[in-house]
């Protein structure tokens, strides 16, 4: 299992390097500090949500409401700031709203025994509607200067986005190796078996949705602080982008299989692709098309290629007994 994941990730990595190389040859400024930090800043919110989405998808679930949670949290922050709250309490309020939204989903899915796709589909509209309802669809901006510190300043020469993304990634890697993390994999593989094995499936699943709610709110803080403007439609389509990254990263949409490293590579691939297309002058409509094609192509490759056979033929053999591993995979 591990070896196959490694090979998949290597394939993504090679694709990323090829893409980056082509972009560099075309415009050397692609690798300039300013561009790399742009890519980082613009995609960290997506990365945070994609890390959370990895856990959700590992459990065999899905969360379609993350973009709306981001929008609602951002509006909460904006409204709190406009009401004269301090920056710290406004940010905490935003995080609180995100965790409330996550708990709402988690409760309906676990205690309510409702399918995640339906719960979060409803929640997607519910939270987005609330965001529009509370703000009347108007832009909010003109926040105090301290509110933009997080999104616009650096620590040790790198934007806060980088440190935040790194911290969340590290946290997720740690979580994945806890009892909770193993439970997430187990319930995605076979929920009944996990229950029979005495795992607290409901509690652990609830925590997954709480985690992604919190991460969506964290992403909202980065957005709000960076742009200094809030609108109820913030984060639209982000849920689909996050799912794209997770699946690009080799996770099974049916649960039980996937890694955070893969997701990180998926985010990087999508981020570089979008930045590259902006640099190349590919307009938004075709960017959407290209992103869709990339996803389908990568999945087609992942599903059809026998990685063990490819590496064997290339003489790269790090997978022990590839044939056995592959048959287990199927």
């Amino acid at each position: 299992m591990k070896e196959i994941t490694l090979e998949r990730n290597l394939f993504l990595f090679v694709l990323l390097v090829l893409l980056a190389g082509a972009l560099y040859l075309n415009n050397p400024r692609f690798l300039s500090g300013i561009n790399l930090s742009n890519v980082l800043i613009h995609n960290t919110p997506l990365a945070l949500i994609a890390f959370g989405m990895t856990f959700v998808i590992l459990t065999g679930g899905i969360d379609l409401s993350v973009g709306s949670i981001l929008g609602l949290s951002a509006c909460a922050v904006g409204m709190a700031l406009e009401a004269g709250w301090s920056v710290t309490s406004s940010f905490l309020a935003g995080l609180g709203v995100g965790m409330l939204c996550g708990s709402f989903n988690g409760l309906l899915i676990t205690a309510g025994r409702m399918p995640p796709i339906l719960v979060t589909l409803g929640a997607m509209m519910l939270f987005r509607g609330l965001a529009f309802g509370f703000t009347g669809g108007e832009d909010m901006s003109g926040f105090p200067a301290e509110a933009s510190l997080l999104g616009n300043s650096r620590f040790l020469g790198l934007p806060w986005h980088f440190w935040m993304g790194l911290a969340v990634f590290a946290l997720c890697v740690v979580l994945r190796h806890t009892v909770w993390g193993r439970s997430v994999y187990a319930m995605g593989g076979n929920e009944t078996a996990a229950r029979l094995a005495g795992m607290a499936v409901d509690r652990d699943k609830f925590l997954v949705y709480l985690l992604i709610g919190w991460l969506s709110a964290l992403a909202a803080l980065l957005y709000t602080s960076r742009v200094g403007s809030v609108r109820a439609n913030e984060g639209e389509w982000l849920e689909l982008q996050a799912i794209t990254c997770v699946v690009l990263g080799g996770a099974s949409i049916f649960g039980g299989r996937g890694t955070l490293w893969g997701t990180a590579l998926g985010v990087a691939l999508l981020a570089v692709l979008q930045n590259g297309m902006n640099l190349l002058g590919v307009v938004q409509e075709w960017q959407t098309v290209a992103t869709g094609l990339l996803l389908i192509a990568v999945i087609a490759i992942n599903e059809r290629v026998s990685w063990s056979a490819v590496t064997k033929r290339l003489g790269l053999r790090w997978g022990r007994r590839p044939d056995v591993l592959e048959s287990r995979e199927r």
Partner: protein
Amino acid sequence: MKRFGHVLILAAVAFTLACSPETDTETAGGDGPEATSGEERVTVAMLPKLKGIPYFNLCEEGARRAAAEENVDLIWDAPLEVNTSKQVQLIDDWLVRGMDVLALASNDPQAIAPSIARAKAQGVPVLTWDTDSPGTERDYFINQVDGRVLGRMMMDIMADELGGEGQFAIITGGLEAENLNFWMKYIKLQHTEQYPEMELVGVWHCDSNRQKAFDVATNLLQSHPDLDGIIGNDSAAFSGACDAVEKMGLQDRVEVTGLSMPSEIRPFVKSGVVDKFLLWDPRMLGYLTVKVAANLARGVEPEPGQLIEGYGEVRFDPEDADALIMAPPTVYTATNIDDFDY
């Protein structure tokens, strides 16, 4: 199966590599002096509020025409929905890509200010068009219409059609829209200054929603049987009011005018609901913006009275020394409406 996988990998690699030569010509355009008109080729990046709506499509049409005339590489792109952070991202990426002038229509002046500042820091002149971003470092604003003239003209048309007396009402898009309120202020000023015999029965709003405007206008016509005219202050308000008058069969009794695209109002002109209405030409807005941008890229600042080929004389806003104002809006009537293909 395996072979299929290999083909896909090759295709992916080929796609990646294929991206490079195709765009070499496009991005290098900024410095390549292979000019056709003898002038250096320049790159202008133009950012509308969003893509895919008829209004901005027309702006793009005009912008492309000017770009072809002025030897300009035009980058025209925007998010597919109203979204400030995506606008910011696009500007950041364009600044890496390189451009000579940035022309943008922002959804949020305050939020776009840092992006404008970053462009200026890189030595890129910044124009705003369609919607200004006041209080930023932008160089010039290309204003599509003088709101004072527009408001007064709407009132003049209404008064002319009613013979200077009678009752009229205003339906506006939204009560908080700054530009609509500015135009309405001048409708009312012209009313009190020039047509004291006429009576304004009230102002209603429709959230820029045509269906709602229809409901509002229907109620209005039922509750005010003596009403002689309706001014629709935005395209939804105007066309909704036209719908209502037509459905109630009042076209011979009630006059309707306002602002909208000819394509939207043409049927009502044909059916006799509307005699005259107004709008600026969105294509001219795109055209003028690119012309001014091309000049700026070549070091020519706009100034009052400057002659721009294909447009005419540059005029400035008397109250804002950095704002250009486009020529007075076009008046559309039954006789000229078929001359416009938008």
